[in-house]
Structures are given as structure tokens and as C-alpha cells.
């Protein structure tokens, strides 16, 4: 088993196209790291550089303590699962799985034993005599995984292995990959453009864009503390809502003005902004749809279309001249579906102060972490995520009387029922 280390790695194609730039990362032994990002962000190129299928233009790649820049793919002790399975169509499933072992001149009995063990663990024993064209997509992917696991590699690479599967099969295979990871207990590097896969599979997620790492962190970290606006928008479904606003500071407290409506900022975030020495400025306020509630007071909005997701409802609201997505529960406590009022009805949106994210309008960086890059322990992050569920009122209980006139109007502090939601009769 071994970790993987990137030291200032760059990859330039055709002397002009920069696919990966100044990539520094340490993947620990037995860690499951997911590279995620939009198409063309360099995630697959990075994976291929680990495999030796692409050579880095500059920088060094280590597998374990071994510099592998000039080592051929077959000698790197890695295995890779490809998006399109890359099975050899003229060979049977057995031959496909055994091929790598045969080339490495393993004794026949050992090959047989390893292939059968792998087939058993992947539940493809009855398919061993079939050729790939007689298999379904899910079965082919299992064979591809089988071909990789028999080699018992130091590092397991997966390049969008679930992309060609339908949604149901993808969910099933995702769970199987998690089980497989537990069984193999080796280092995994997984590439995907699907943030759900990244969040569910990875110990750590590396979010990439335009060849650069945007953020590295646990799923909780990147969800709760996005390093910049891109990460905030990329991670989370439905996508984070963004509003253009103005960060102001009055009476020693920060607040954000969205048009004429003030949004309070929680104590915890106030402290961070102060510690980063943030100055009043134009900002982009990000808030996840789960962290907006419909109240009796707040930012006025008009209900647009809705997407029924079963247990939840995604409401599209028109507020501040833009579309705002709000997630509300689709069922009440007794398990009845709630009836959502018709389109065009008025509502008030409340953005929860502890769950908002402030990004610099100029650079897109998260202002809470712009001066010093904070890292969070798992416990801290978990605490932070949990606190968003039971967010406390963001207005100080006892406002300074002298500054009362200057203090922005407080958003409502109590939930008096969602007047857009009615119990279904």
C-alpha cells in the first residue's frame, strides 16, 4: 500500500493548453480521494498522470516514496478502471480478469484462484465464460473492477467508472464501491464530475477547475465551508443561491444588504470576518436552498414553479429580481404530503445567518477564510453542519440602544408556520 504525492505538477498539451497547473497534493496511504470538477478541469489528466498514461510537463509524482515520473505504467503497481470499461471484447470475462496476471507470469493455479476469488466477491462467477458483449453495463463494470483488483495494486484508480450506468445502477454500484474499498483497504483515487459521487465516496474531495485545485477537504468541509464561489456552487444539490450584496459594518458588527433588505451574520461568522480583517465591500452572498425558510417577514418573494422530489419540494421563488431555489419538506411530521400553494403567491424568505457564505465580488474567495486558510477538524465541521440545522436567531438579543437607529432591521426570529405550505386534506 502507498500514498501518492504531487509536487508542483503541471501538464501542458500542445505547448499552449494548460490542463493542470501547479498541482500540489498528498494522498495518504489507504485514503479514498475523489477528484471532482466540471469537464476540462484537469481531473482525468491528473489521474492519467498517476497511471503513467500522461507524463507531467513539470513537477514530480511519487507513489509511496518512489518517484514515478519516468516509470512505465506497468511498473507503477497501480490498476485503473475506465469509464467505458475498456474490456477486451475478444476475450472471455475469465481471460479479461486473468490477462494482467498472465503477462506477469503468475502460475496457472494462482491465476485461477485469484480470478475465481475476485469473481466471487463481485458476484460474476456465472459470467466467467461469457464475452463482454453478452454482459450488461453493470456487469461489465464489475468485470473491469475485477480485472483491477486481482492485481492487488498499491493504488486503485477509477476514471468516472459509473458515468455510463443508469441512475439506479449507479446508486447500487456506488454502494458496492464503498464495500469494495472496505475489503481492499488500499489507496483509491477516483475521478468524477458528479458531486454526489464525490460526497458519498470520498474521504477527501479535491475540487478542480481550469487545472487548478479549488479546495481540498472532507465532504463536510467543502459543503459547509466552500473556499470560493465556484466550490459553493459546485457542491450541493440543488445549487447554492447567489445574491449580489454589500457587506457593511456598523457598530462593530457586520451585516449584508441585499438591495434594501439587511441580512444578519452569526456570531461565529462575525468572528471569522474580524479575524480575517475583512473590510466592507461588494460581496456575493451564497446560501443553500436548505437554509432558506419561508417566514412571515423577510425578503419578499413570489412563488414560481415547483419540483416535487417526494420527501422534499424544490420551490422556485422570484426574489430580488432573480430565481431563488428553496427546499421545503414535502411531508409533515405525520407523514402526510403537504400541499403547496399555487404559483404567483407571495412569501417572505429568511436567509439564515449562520448558514450564509460571503464571497468577494471581485475574486470569488470566501471572505471568512480569505486572509488565513483555516483548516477544520472533522469534529468542528460536523458541529458546524449540525448547527445549521438548528440555526439560532441572528439578531442580537439586546441591541445597543444608542445604535438602535443604525442597526439594520432584524429579520423575524420565530417560525410562525410556512404560510405557503398547507396540510393536505
Amino acid at each position, binding site marked *: 500500500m502507498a500514498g501518492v504525492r504531487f509536487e508542483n505538477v503541471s501538464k501542458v498539451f500542445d505547448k499552449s493548453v494548460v490542463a493542470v497547473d501547479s498541482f500540489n497534493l498528498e494522498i495518504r496511504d489507504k485514503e479514498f480521494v475523489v477528484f471532482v470538477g466540471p469537464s476540462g478541469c484537469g481531473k482525468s489528466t491528473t489521474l492519467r498522470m498517476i497511471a503513467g498514461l500522461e507524463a507531467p510537463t513539470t513537477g514530480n509524482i511519487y507513489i509511496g516514496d518512489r518517484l514515478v515520473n519516468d516509470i512505465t505504467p506497468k511498473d507503477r503497481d497501480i490498476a485503473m478502471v475506465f469509464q467505458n470499461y475498456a474490456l*477486451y471484447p475478444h476475450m472471455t470475462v475469465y481471460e479479461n480478469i486473468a490477462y494482467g496476471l498472465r*503477462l506477469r507470469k503468475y502460475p496457472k493455479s494462482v491465476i485461477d484462484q485469484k480470478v475465481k476469488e475476485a469473481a466471487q466477491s463481485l458476484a460474476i462467477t456465472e459470467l466467467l465464460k461469457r464475452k463482454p458483449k453478452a454482459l450488461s453495463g453493470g456487469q461489465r463494470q464489475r468485470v473491469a473492477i475485477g480485472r483491477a483488483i486481482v492485481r492487488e495494486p498499491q493504488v486503485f484508480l477509477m476514471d468516472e467508472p459509473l458515468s455510463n450506468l443508469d441512475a439506479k445502477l449507479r446508486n447500487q454500484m456506488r454502494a458496492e464501491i464503498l464495500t469494495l474499498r472496505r475489503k481492499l483497504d488500499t489507496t483509491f483515487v477516483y475521478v468524477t464530475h458528479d458531486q454526489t459521487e464525490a460526497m458519498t465516496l470520498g474521504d477527501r474531495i479535491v475540487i478542480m477547475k481550469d487545472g487548478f485545485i479549488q479546495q481540498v477537504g472532507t465532504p463536510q468541509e467543502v459543503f459547509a465551508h466552500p473556499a470560493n464561489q465556484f466550490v459553493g456552487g459546485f457542491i450541493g444539490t440543488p445549487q447554492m443561491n447567489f445574491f449580489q450584496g454589500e457587506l457593511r459594518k456598523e457598530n462593530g458588527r457586520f451585516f449584508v444588504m441585499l438591495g434594501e433588505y439587511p441580512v444578519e451574520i452569526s456570531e461565529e461568522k462575525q468572528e471569522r470576518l474580524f479575524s480575517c480583517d475583512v473590510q466592507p465591500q461588494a460581496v456575493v452572498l451564497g446560501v443553500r436552498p436548505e437554509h432558506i425558510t419561508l417566514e412571515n417577514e423577510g425578503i419578499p418573494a413570489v412563488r414560481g414553479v415547483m419540483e416535487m422530489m417526494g420527501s422534499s419540494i424544490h420551490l422556485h421563488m422570484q426574489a430580488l429580481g432573480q430565481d431563488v431555489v428553496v427546499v421545503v419538506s414535502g411531508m409533515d411530521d405525520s407523514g402526510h404530503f403537504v400541499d403547496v400553494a399555487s404559483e404567483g403567491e407571495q412569501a417572505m424568505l429568511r436567509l439564515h445567518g449562520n448558514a450564509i457564505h460571503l464571497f468577494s465580488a471581485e475574486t470569488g474567495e470566501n471572505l471568512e477564510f480569505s486572509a488565513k486558510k483555516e483548516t477544520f477538524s472533522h469534529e468542528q465541521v460536523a458541529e458546524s453542519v449540525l448547527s445549521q440545522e438548528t440555526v439560532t436567531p441572528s439578531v442580537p438579543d439586546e441591541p445597543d440602544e444608542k445604535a438602535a437607529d443604525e442597526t439594520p432591521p432584524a429579520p423575524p426570529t420565530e417560525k410562525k408556520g410556512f404560510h405557503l405550505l398547507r396540510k393536505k386534506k
Partner: protein
Amino acid sequence: MKRAKHLFRRAFMTLVAALFAISFLMPTVLTISNSFMTQSEINSNYGSVFTAAKDGKTYISEAVNLKFIPDKVTFSQYITTFIKSPEYLLKFWNSVILVVPIVLLQVGVAAVAAYGFSRWRGKVRDSIFFFYVILMLMPYQVTLVPNYLVSDFLGILNTRWAIIFPGAFAPFSVFLLTKFMRRIPVSQIEAAKLDGSSEWQIFTRIYLPQCRSALYSIAILVFIDYWNMVEQPLILLKDAEMQPLSVYLSTINSGEIGLAFAVATIYMIPSLLLFLHGEEYLVEGIAQSGSVKG
């Protein structure tokens, strides 16, 4: 009404197809059936044609009696071919030792060249490939004179190599096979590399087995093409002893028509067998090579 129209159209198309099939098959059937006729029966059927031709008279179609069913079935022509006239078998052997090396070499060279063209792309390689396509479009007669001059320069004129060498490096097979190989996904090669394959192993264990139908179709097409060659041996092989049967058949005289039928029947057997055996591969190979995305 619509159904009747459809049936009529179908019947018409079948009739047209049948007419074409009969006209294409007639010479073959005639050759095979006539090879079982006695010499006297053949003479009575076709004798006047050869007499007229010799005398420089106008060909009279009425003089020909096209008969498909022999009055009396005999194997005498075959007995003569195999026992009494060994020169036919000698020419048959000449054809074999010219065509078999061409087929083997051409398939081998094409496989290696096509592997190069499909595995590594680049401006230079694509330009060379473009020249291959241009060459392929030229009829053989265009390159006959340069071939003659080069053979003379290499000192292989009037040897079998004058035909085998140009045959080994024919562009059509390379083109067909390159198109076929470019269908193989790059990820398979990458997977093979990670599995531990060398370049040679990728070629022999991953590429070639997947190109079996294309290789087979190329072998059939090349075999048929060179089995029937006339121009190359006529120009490049002056020594009549080395001429293949395809050339020798054209030198038949009126007394040996029956023998010619038997020899022609024997001569078409290898091509037919090869075609019948590899028909499936042939269709698949050509279809897949043709419907390739660039």
C-alpha cells in the same frame, strides 16, 4: 391496393435481381458443366467459333451451341489435366507460389503499417496515409511502368519477386485495416499497458484478434485479385515457364477447349472455397472498415 402494389414491386425487384444473378452465374455454370462434356461434344458446340476466329471471319453467334447439360458426363478432361497434361498443374503451382506469398506478406505488412497509422497520429503520419489513399485510387496500369523500371533497377525483373514485392506493399489493405483498427478504443490500449503489455503484445494480443474479420476479408480480396492477375506476369515475367495459370489459360487453342474448361473449374476452386469459408468475415470486415468515424 397498397399491398398489391408492394407485392408487385417486390416481384419486379426479385425478377431483376434474378436476371442479374443468372447473367453473372452463366459463365461459371457453363464452365463447370462443360468441363464434364466429351471433347467431341465440345467440338460440335464451339468448334465453329475457333475456326472462324482463326480464319479471320466474322463471329457468327448462330454457330455457337450453348449447352449446359452434357449428353454424356465424363471426367476425361480432368483425367487429362491431372495425368496427361501436367503443364496445367505446373502453371497452377506457379499461381500458388506467386499468390500465397503475396497474400501472406500483404496481410502482414498491412497489419503492421495499419497499427502504426492507427496508434500514432500526427501530421506526418496522416500525410503518408493520405498518399496511401491517393495511390489506392490509381488503377494498377498507372504504376505498371514505374514498377517495371524499379524491378529492372533492383535486378528482379523476370523473377517472381517482381510481382511479389509490389504486391506485398499494396495500399488498399493498409487503408482498410487502418480504418478498422482506428475503431479500437484507446482505453483498451491503455488498459493493456497497465496490465503489463508491451507494444508487441498490444499488437498481437489486443489488436490482431480484434481485426480477424478485417484480416480475413483482406486475405480473400487480395487472393482473388492476384489469383486472376494477367497484366503483371505478362509484363514482368518474360519467362513463360514462370507464368501463372491465369495467363496460360488465355493461350488455349481449339483442340483444348474441353481441357480449358476443366482447368478453369479447378482454378476457381480455391477462390470459391476461400470465399465460402470466409464470407461472414468478408462482409463484417468490409462493413466495419467502411463505417468508420475519422
